[in-house]
């Protein structure tokens, strides 16, 4: 088939471009119809056939749990990327919210704020508040002062990590109360708490983006900010809000992580922003803004978790996993671009 196509191409220029276009169109059609969901199903089928443990209930629960922290970050990232922004600070905010909230839930004399452990609800409020505050600073600088999001959140990546180390003295915050730890370790009818929180965040985000006025404004502000402004949408407020959402979800993710690992670690969350962006991009949300679905992000996060889990089960070195993940990201964007050309 290949040689035939090549000889055609050599024989006659128009035929060649025609073949390429139909190939591209086929890829685009495939992408449009089945897209990343097909990739997820294919990978799952492949893993199920090659490893007897992959499809077990326990492993499925593991995959969902392992996807939940990145998934929650990626959902916040989806809001930001839809408005043509980026949030590079989520990994550091994970650590900052983790140590701040944990210090309110810790029974350790050295690491806790005085009077701790406080009720879990207060500790959670402190963690969410920390995330919201970091997000608000990001949003304020991006929306009101027109500093590029890349620069603002790169600065926050550094500043939040520094604040984490200052606040914790570089030491883990241990001795978390049972209530706080249940954020990461409890389960309901066999479903782990991180998965339940991930599902709740997903449903909430899906509802907001699909069914509310604010959701439509997010798409409009990202798709064509000028037109959105002309039609009366307060683009600055929308931008501000998406960074606050991303910050709050990073706060939530940080608390789940601390609850899972048993201590809030100042080194937690390093490079988590990259996996979150990867999940969003694999899920088909365009970095150019205005186009994308949170369902895509969900599938993207699941795909990353499934690939990592599957390669672990098969005993593949983690270094190969990184290479495979890199290939996946680029392939997803190529698929996405093919789809746009077809549109």
């Amino acid at each position, binding site marked *: 088939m290949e040689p035939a196509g090549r000889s055609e191409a050599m024989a006659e220029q128009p035929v060649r471009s025609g073949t390429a276009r139909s190939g591209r169109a086929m890829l685009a059609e495939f992408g449009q119809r089945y897209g990343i969901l097909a990739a997820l199903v294919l990978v799952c089928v492949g893993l199920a056939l090659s490893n007897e443990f992959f499809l077990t209930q326990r492993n499925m629960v*593991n995959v969902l749990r*392992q996807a939940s922290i990145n998934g929650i970050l990626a959902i916040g990232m989806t809001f930001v990327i839809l408005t043509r922004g980026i949030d590079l600070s989520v990994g550091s905010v994970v650590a900052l919210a983790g140590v701040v909230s944990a210090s309110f839930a810790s029974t350790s004399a050295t690491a806790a704020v005085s009077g701790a452990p406080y009720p879990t609800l207060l500790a959670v409020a402190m963690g969410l508040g920390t995330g919201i505050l970091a997000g608000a600073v990001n949003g304020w600088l991006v929306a009101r002062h027109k500093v590029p999001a890349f620069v603002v959140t790169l600065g926050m990546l550094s500043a939040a990590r520094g604040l984490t180390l*200052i*606040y914790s003295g*570089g030491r*883990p915050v241990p001795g978390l109360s049972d209530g706080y730890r249940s954020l990461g*370790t409890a389960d309901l009818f066999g479903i782990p708490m991180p998965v339940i929180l991930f599902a709740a965040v997903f449903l909430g985000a899906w509802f907001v983006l699909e069914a509310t006025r604010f959701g439509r404004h997010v798409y409009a502000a990202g798709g064509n900010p000028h037109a959105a402004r002309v039609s009366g949408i307060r683009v600055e407020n929308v931008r501000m809000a998406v960074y606050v959402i991303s910050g709050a979800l990073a706060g939530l993710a940080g608390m789940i992580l601390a609850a899972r690992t048993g201590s809030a*670690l100042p080194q937690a969350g390093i490079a988590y922003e990259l996996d979150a962006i990867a999940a969003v991009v694999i899920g088909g949300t365009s970095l150019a803004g205005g186009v994308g679905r949170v369902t895509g992000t969900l599938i993207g996060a699941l795909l990353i978790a499934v690939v990592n889990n599957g390669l672990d089960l098969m005993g593949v070195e*983690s270094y190969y996993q990184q290479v495979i993940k890199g290939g996946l990201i680029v392939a997803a964007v190529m698929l996405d671009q093919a789809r746009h050309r077809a549109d």
Partner: protein
Amino acid sequence: MRTLLRTLALATALACGTAAAADVPRIGAAVYGLNAEFMQIWAAALEDHPAVREGLVNVTIFDGRYNALVQQEQFETMITQGFDAIIFVPIDVEAGAAAVQAAHDAGIPVIGSNTRVNSDLLTSYVGSDDVQSGYLQARYVLDQIGCTGGVVILEGPIGQSAQIQRLEGNLKALAECPDVEIIAQQTANWSRAEAQTLMENWLTAHPGRIAGVIGQNDEMALGAIEAIRAAGQDVQDFAIAGIDGVTDALRAVKAGDMASILQDGAAQAQGALDLAMRAIQPDYQPMSAIWEQYPEMPWNDGADAEYNVPWTPVTEENVEALLALRQ
């Protein structure tokens, strides 16, 4: 925070009070990074050395921020400012030889501490033998499982000196138990969260076959413990060992969940400072209590090329006392 403030205070003191402190030697400590608990303990011990407390020496700690180039530049700064001696904890064995060369050319003695550097220009080196710790921890796990069954190894970042040497020790012990199978062996990059995910997946892939967990540091062993709990299994059914003696691990030892071996960073720091003082003042006598604490590491007039701080296995007997030191 306290360390940072102290360093700032010392730096300010150096800047403002050079006249007052003119005859007091200045020693710079270039450490690879201050983000993790182990180096915090190391730095705190350095500043708590009797010679520092009595004002016989000024110490400035430079945070290398896990970057070999940053460390190189800090060496250049210390050389320019005419420091009298440098204590060096490099980010890696291979990185830092050029920095040591530069200090040597400027006539400044360099004392190695904790991590080796591939240079023969060090005045002396104070550290702990990682091959030995790797052997000791694997030996503990193997004894617990009766030299039979399956083990997994959670490794440090592949290629780092501690990973290479601890693995060498692990494998030396495993060679003594030919019936023990290494079921899986992979890096979790010293990270608790990464080790947790890896262990969850291993428990799924090898149900009922893992009896022992060799974590090349405490953080990864702690991650494995959380993974075992999350899988609804009993931690007591596993023999788990880590290395370093970080505070969370001491607590886990106390709870009977794992074994750990304390790497005495405090002794590595204070020993290095005594050796640095000796390099500046030939008649200096060591002031740190560590030389009495470890009779198996004799001072030998500060003339040895290498000082080996012994490992301390953390046991139920000594864990309370070790935890009390962390308050």
